């Protein structure tokens, strides 16, 4: 079995990267993900990995170099946050469209403006249509576990897609947490050897990547990419099960906390889920039927499974740590509305935008939301469909009575 250690989330990620030992890592520093690459650079400098490290001059070039390296034929990783991910945006779509299983550790941070270095999900949510598989982590342990599984998921032959592994800036990246590491050999056996298809370095069999694809073929290629994303659903399940065998840990698409008989439920991703669990423990002790659904996989979005999980619930609060300005609610809320559309036993749903720019969600705030949900369950009335919470000033809520 593994070794129990106390590490920050960033060092946990760097440790997973050391164990994965990618062929090439190209990156550019940005708070709060910088430490991942700093620590990994030490592993490179000390010869603990064989990786060629490219200290790129920008995130755009870092992702471009990842794409070149992946096309050349090998395992490739990077890490970034916020503006860095935004700066990569053009290349994110290209990595996915070219079907390269690049792995990106995204340490979630708010997007400017105003500039802010703390955790929210606006960066990775902004990339949700880029064609990357997205996996979210509550804590350092999950972040570590996800990164190792990401290698296998992305590299599966009927998937071959890039994977973004997200965890919260500072709350997870900089706080010391206890976690269990697998030993190096177990990780290496689990991920196995990478077999590149049509590598550029196979000069005897020249291939052209990135041809101009016009009306005649473009849609077939995009559809093939969409199919690959669909294929990843099963792969994600298989890999999670296999990983559980070697680690004894992990959920698949999402984690359920007291969901068996829960009447009112909060849906929340990443670190704040931990705080919600604390509230649930206290409320359950008082006999209240509250529960938590914590999505792990955001892309591909597990529509049916998530909707099934909510089928016996009366009222749900979807918690978004990012807004989709101008839409009726945050990105997670919109996905859940689609997932539940047309279902017979739809729960009543509300949306809260919380924690932007790293603002804490306190125990008390969470308990208030459960109270509101109980009220909704009892009266059948929703006061506000979507609103910002824990915020000063006039409320500008959508769907407010």
């Amino acid at each position, binding site marked *: 079995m593994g070794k129990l250690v106390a590490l920050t989330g960033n060092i946990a990620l760097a440790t997973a990267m050391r164990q994965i030992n990618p062929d090439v890592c190209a990156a550019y520093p940005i708070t709060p993900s910088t430490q991942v690459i700093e620590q990994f650079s030490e592993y490179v400098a000390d010869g603990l990995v064989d990786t060629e490290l490219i200290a790129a001059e920008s995130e755009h*070039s870092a992702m471009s170099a990842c794409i*070149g390296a992946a*096309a050349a*034929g090998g395992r490739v990783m990077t890490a970034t946050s916020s503006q860095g991910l935004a700066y990569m945006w053009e290349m994110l779509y290209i990595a996915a469209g070219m079907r390269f299983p690049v792995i990106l550790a995204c340490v979630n941070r708010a997007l400017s403006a105003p500039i802010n270095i703390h955790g929210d999900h606006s960066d990775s949510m902004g990339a949700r249509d880029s064609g990357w598989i997205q996996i979210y982590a509550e804590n350092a342990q999950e972040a570590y576990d996800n990164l190792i599984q990401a290698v296998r998921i992305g590299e599966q032959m009927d998937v071959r897609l890039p994977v973004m592994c997200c965890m919260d800036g500072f709350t997870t990246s900089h706080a010391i947490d206890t976690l269990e590491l697998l030993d190096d050999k177990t990780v290496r056996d689990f991920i196995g050897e990478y077999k590149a298809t049509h590598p550029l370095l196979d000069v005897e069999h020249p291939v052209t*990547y990135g041809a101009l694809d016009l009306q005649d073929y473009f849609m077939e290629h995009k559809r093939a990419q969409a199919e690959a994303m669909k294929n990843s659903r099963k792969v994600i399940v298989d890999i999670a099960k296999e990983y559980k065998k070697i680690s004894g840990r992990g959920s698949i698409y999402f984690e359920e906390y007291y969901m068996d008989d829960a009447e009112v439920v909060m849906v929340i991703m990443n670190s704040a889920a931990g705080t919600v669990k604390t509230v649930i423990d206290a409320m359950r002790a008082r006999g209240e039927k509250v529960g938590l659904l914590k999505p792990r996989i955001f892309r591909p979005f597990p529509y049916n499974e998530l909707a099934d999980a909510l089928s016996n619930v009366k009222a749900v609060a979807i918690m978004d740590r990012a807004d989709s300005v101008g839409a009726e609610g945050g990105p997670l809320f919109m996905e859940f509305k689609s997932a539940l559309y047309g279902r017979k036993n739809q729960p009543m749903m509300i949306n809260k935008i919380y924690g932007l720019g790293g603002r804490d969600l306190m125990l008390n705030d969470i308990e208030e939301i459960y109270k509101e949900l109980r009220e909704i369950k009892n009266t059948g009335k929703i006061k506000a469909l979507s609103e910002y919470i824990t915020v000063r000033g006039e409320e500008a809520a959508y769907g407010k009575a």
Partner: protein
Amino acid sequence: MVKLKDLIQKKPIMEGGHRMCLGCGAPILVNLILRASDAPVVLSNATGCLEVASTIFPYTAWNAPWIHSAFENAAATISGIESMYRALKKKGKIDKKINFVAFGGDGGTYDIGFQSLSGALERGHRFVYVCYDNGAYMNTGVQRSSATPFGAATTTSPAGVVIPGKLQKRKDLTKIVAAHNIPYVAQASPHNWLDLAKKAEKAFSVDGPAFLNVISPCPPGWKSEAKDTIGLCKIAVDTCFWPLYEVENGKYTINYKPKEKLPIETWLKPQGRFRHLFKPENAKLLKQIQEDIDKEWESLQKLAAL
């Protein structure tokens, strides 16, 4: 040393049948350069005419591994490829020598890809960057770039009633690249095939980054005749608009000095993009162009004398 006899026997890496215009300089210089490689090549290509017109799916003109990923990142992309090569070599998974080449137009090199180029040069990857400089964003319909010559009319620097074309001087990219202190930098022209091939050979031989800036006429953009492409290259060099020189580990060498420097009008006249300069009211602009060229030629000679 390269010999014409050997060069022409090599199969062209960029095959015929692509859709670049009649008289385009780019395919000519691409094949000349790639033929001078002593090893198989892997290529990265920025968005632009060379990319768009050579790989319309399901066709490709390339007889070598080739990748295009975006406009501003041919250098970053090749640096990823070259790093993977080194990683796999270290692990014993690959052993043969491969040369790495990135192609970019002037827009993809002087402008939007400038940072990516500078970064890759500074990191010291072993690759040859080739800029085919046709002096504008041709693929999107002849917009001005920072390589567009002073006075030229483009679709974003048109010769209008009050503004007579582009009023800014070209960025001197070759010297900026030389300031990166990389092992090899050269400016070349396809009309002097031997000089270009020799420079390519040197570029491939160095253990680090090399840069070739090659003039590349574009009949639709220059409003010139396809048959004049090679001739216009020669005049560009004989007027000293485009001097042939190289910088080897910091040492400047002029590779060709015209016996008699031709007046710049000889080069401007056959190109429709400069037509407005020959109106009487623009005589001062013509004068200024000549003065600038004379000054730059002087300063290059001084550098070479160091």
